[in-house]
């Protein structure tokens, strides 16, 4: 039964040609035990249900339970500006309460069976999930987020004229945001707004006959956005039919959920960043870095606490900005951002590596040398098995050994680095530090 439903969904997604190219948005509600993504979308945002923490000890009220769905619709309504987007909400099924993020991710990345449709290589995915703790009228949310581009390592590189490459990766691709307090009243207000937005209209007119979007269906409900007209989206899908309209004229800043959850600003920035990466050589919109900057700025403004665990999303925000600058060829603008991130994550060799590679890229006329060697050796002292740093040292020593008057100890250093790298690679699968690197 499940297999038949999966096959049917795959056919539906394929035949509909959702998001085949360029801009476009599609939404879907599916059950957790059979997740699916839009294969044609440059980015899928997959929202899992927020789970009641064991401390709650009782079922959550409606608004809290539906929070995941609200976030999915928020994504659909606000993230489409970046490009081709699939927004998926996975709801729990009655015979199974949990919806483990790792399992869903593995299914959607085709590492284990069970998904109706998977993310294609090179395309990006953001998974978002969380916990809810309700204390009287107050609701505390903790949101988690994971992102990746399938089959790619997120990071930067500096290519030298001779073809040599120095690489550095983004050290953090999973984030636990600090718990956030909302009142039940806040959630009710959000739900009211949501109910107004989540209706399907016969015409692009708020007075036209309408019905609710079938969001809680057990069977997957997928729809594509066919046309945008004066703040309205024309949508079609097997369940909702053709020629229907969604009212989407929502200023992202006015969307109430976003005001209460700065994490959604972070999500917005991350979506823009990933769209920019996926577009790659296909000339991504020049507006994206500006939008990413704005959204990260809003997140930082709303997040007073920047120490401890809260430092991680702040540091990641700086790294995303730095990566965008590197992709745009503005290494000198990236380096200070990486330096700030490294100060927030003083134990991270990857954060230091980003700073070193950006510094190299910012001075294209100068040859890498002693200063870079010292910095990489310092970073290696923090994480002695960091393959990216070992690879960069190997490249550096290889370069130096080709020059005139190379130090006598260089062949020995080069051989030592090669041996250490080989030893580490022999002990673990070659998923990390192997050449399939960005951008």
């Amino acid at each position, binding site marked *: 039964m499940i297999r038949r439903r999966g096959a049917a969904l795959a056919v539906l997604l394929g035949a509909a040609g959702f998001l085949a190219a360029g801009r476009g948005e599609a939404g879907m509600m599916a059950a957790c035990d059979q997740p699916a993504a839009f294969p044609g979308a440059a980015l899928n945002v997959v929202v899992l249900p927020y789970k009641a*923490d*064991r*401390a*709650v*000890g009782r079922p959550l009220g409606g608004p809290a339970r539906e929070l995941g769905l609200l976030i999915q619709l928020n994504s659909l309504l606000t993230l489409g500006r970046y490009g081709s987007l699939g927004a998926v909400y996975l709801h729990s099924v009655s015979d199974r309460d949990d919806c483990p993020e790792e399992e869903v991710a593995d299914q959607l990345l085709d590492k284990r069976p069970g998904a109706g449709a998977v993310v294609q290589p090179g395309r990006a995915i953001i998974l978002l999930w969380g*916990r809810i*703790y309700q*204390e*009287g009228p107050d609701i*505390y949310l*903790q949101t*988690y987020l994971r992102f990746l581009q399938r089959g790619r390592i997120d990071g930067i590189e500096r290519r030298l004229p001779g073809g040599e490459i120095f690489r550095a990766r983004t050290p*953090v*691709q*999973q984030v*636990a945001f*600090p*718990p956030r307090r909302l009142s039940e009243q806040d959630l009710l207000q959000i739900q009211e707004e949501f109910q107004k937005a989540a209706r399907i209209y016969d015409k692009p007119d708020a007075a036209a006959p309408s019905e609710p979007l079938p969001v809680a269906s057990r069977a997957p409900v997928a729809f594509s956005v066919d046309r945008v007209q004066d703040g309205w989206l024309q949508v079609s899908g097997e369940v909702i039919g053709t020629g229907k309209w969604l009212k989407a004229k929502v200023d992202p800043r006015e969307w109430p959920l976003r005001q209460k959850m700065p994490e959604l600003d972070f999500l917005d920035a991350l979506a823009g960043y990933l769209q920019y990466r996926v577009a790659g050589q296909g000339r991504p919109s020049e507006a994206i870095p500006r939008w990413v900057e704005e959204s990260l700025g809003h997140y930082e403004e709303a997040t007073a*606490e920047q*120490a*401890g*665990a*809260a*430092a*991680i999303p702040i540091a990641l925000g700086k790294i995303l900005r730095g990566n965008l600058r590197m992709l745009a060829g503005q290494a000198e603008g990236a380096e200070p951002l990486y330096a700030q991130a490294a100060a927030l994550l*003083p*134990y991270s*060799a990857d954060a230091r590596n980003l700073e070193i590679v950006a510094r190299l890229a910012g001075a294209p006329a100068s040859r890498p040398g002693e200063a870079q060697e010292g910095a990489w*050796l*310092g970073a*290696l*002292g*923090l*994480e*002695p*098995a*960091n*393959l990216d*740093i*070992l690879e960069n*040292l190997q490249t550096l020593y290889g370069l130096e050994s080709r020059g005139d008057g190379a130090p006598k*100890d260089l062949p020995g*250093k080069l051989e*030592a*680095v090669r*041996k*250490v790298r080989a*030893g*580490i690679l022999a002990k*673990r699968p070659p*998923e*990390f*530090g192997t050449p399939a690197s960005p951008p």
Partner: protein
Amino acid sequence: MAEPGPSRKRRQRAVARAAAAAIGWAIALVVPAGAQLVDCPGIRNNPSTFKVIFDDPAYARQGLDADGELQTIKARLQFAVDGQLQALGMEMRQAAQPAAQLLSVSCPGRHPRGESDFDLDRSQDLTASKVVLEVWATLDGRSQGNNLQDREARIGYALPPLRFYERGAPGLPGFYQLRYPRPGADLSGILTGLPEISAYATLGLGLKAAKAQDYDLAVQYLKKAEALLAAAGPNPDPDAANRRALVDYAKRKSCETVRAALADPGYAGGLKIAYAGARRPCP
């Protein structure tokens, strides 16, 4: 001037009885009702995975469980600790160079009475089971008539590897009790962070790895522990002295681990490159 023998002995006995009673009262005040260190099968499962044990938060004495605010604090604590442990597990999974798995083990009904529960044998057993940290909490308040005031949570931490490997080391008990609310804060602060959990667990993991001569993992986590311990805890902080001692210890231990790796002919990892030539692991 000495008192006659029998009278002096009577007085000594009376003082001893009073002292014993006082100690009994003191224990009754600090040891939760029904406190015990029951066995927890989850500790021995997954023998190759590092673990953090989280015991049931307990009330300091009978009757406190009827207090609504203390019930709320208990629920907050569970939410906060679960969140910290999930975040820590996530961080460790993605720090894939090298990867370390951390399991959160919930032990219902288990509640340490004090430092004596983590004697040498138990610390050794827990360390052998790869338990890097045990966390528990005692909820208390001062009764005034029918009211309860000055509610607090005393959160306990035991680092079995530190207690076992460094037994008797001055300033390094490996057993800490932190009072919440922190000075100048209220109890809602529990929800937004217990930074010491990550710091202590990271240190425990680093120590365990160092003992196993997994030098690369050990140095990575000892250096991280040093940074987390240095950052944890707002000022004014009554636990600052303990933390400073742990920061110094983490620094010293990572330095010793590097030295051990460099001296080990069987080690062929990145530390040999990082500290080749003139670079020294210790200041």
